[in-house]
């Protein structure tokens, strides 16, 4: 074993000891402890407020296809946390992704260098035809994932990632395929501006940034949940454009 690996092992072991020591401490009365696996008590956590949709109201019951005009009409509770109760966090999150994409653009500095292509001039027929068939299906799957984000597992980030995958496959196979930089920028800025615009409209009409200003409808229906689907569509376009841009920059560098 090399000396370097030994030092690394010692440092890791020291960190591990500190962490393991935390498990041996017996908590004083009233202190919160780490639950055993699978024994978490949701009733005493903040999560119960989100599950009851009763952060601002006194609601106790949410029934599929029956409850109307709740404070957040999303059937998927994770979505209601991500895109409604904590949507300001999500705005920060897509800003981080935007900064990473911008940073990659700056680091790779494509303006002065010759742009390369991954796909060969004569890439195989099976690859090309297969991806031609897959491309619209992937776009459709991505769109389904983000449009139904408030009803089923999925959402803007996942849908955007699937759409970016479709463009990645196209870039890897077809050497005539090229996305213009300007169209990526246009989609990304439009989506970002509409996200912030929805937030500002909530600020003007209801008094706080990104507050829900539309009727929330019946839980479980496609046209429900107020501004959550709109926010998720904006996020999906922004994430899809950003990830496509990252992949394009990495391929062309």
């Amino acid at each position: 074993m090399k000396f370097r690996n030994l030092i690394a092992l010692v440092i890791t072991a020291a960190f591990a000891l500190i962490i393991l020591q935390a498990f041996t401490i017996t908590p004083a009365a009233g202190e919160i402890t780490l639950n055993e696996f699978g024994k978490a008590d949701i009733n005493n956590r903040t999560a119960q407020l989100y599950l009851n949709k009763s952060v601002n109201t006194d609601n106790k019951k949410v029934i599929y296809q029956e409850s109307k005009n709740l404070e957040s009409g999303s059937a998927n509770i994770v979505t209601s946390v991500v895109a409604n109760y904590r949507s300001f966090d999500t705005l920060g999150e897509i800003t981080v992704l935007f900064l990473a994409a911008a940073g990659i653009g700056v680091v790779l500095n494509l303006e002065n260098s010759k742009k390369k292509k991954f796909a060969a001039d004569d890439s195989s027929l099976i690859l090309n035809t297969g991806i031609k068939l897959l491309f619209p299906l992937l776009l459709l799957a991505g769109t389904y994932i983000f449009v139904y984000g408030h009803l089923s597992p999925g959402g803007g980030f996942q849908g955007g990632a699937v759409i970016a995958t479709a463009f990645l496959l196209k870039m890897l196979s077809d050497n005539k395929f090229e996305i213009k930089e300007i169209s990526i920028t246009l989609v990304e800025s439009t989506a970002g501006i509409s996200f912030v615009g929805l937030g500002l409209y909530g600020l003007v009409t209801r008094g706080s940034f990104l507050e829900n200003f539309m009727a929330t409808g019946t839980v479980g229906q496609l046209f429900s949940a107020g501004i959550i689907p709109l926010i998720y569509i904006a996020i999906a376009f922004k994430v899809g454009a950003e990830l496509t841009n990252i992949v394009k920059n990495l391929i062309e560098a």
Partner: protein
Amino acid sequence: MLNFLEEWSFFGGSILLIFIGLYGVLSRKNMIKILISLGLMDTGVNLLLVALGYVEAANAPIINSVNPSNAAAFVDPIPQALVLTSIVIGTAVLALGLALVMKIYDKYSTLNISEIRGLKW
């Protein structure tokens, strides 16, 4: 034995993943391997957070035709929302790191961190 695995493989395993990642970051010299170790640490943290919100015999927190009301047992939705954020940021970090590695390889023609001239290590 199975009981022990059920109770500790999720917490213990994710903490183990974090430490494997930490060891990799400290001991590897290849920059790509360092980035892979960072990704392992990321995965470990995400798994630990999701495991903290798990409830036995509970469902995913979605109100649908299978679980038609909020009286059903659901797992904690908040760690899942946080992990969604964390995964996206992990992707951003990895992509930016890979771009930096590409640039460093262009300039120094090596992936070994100790062979890069101008760094005293």
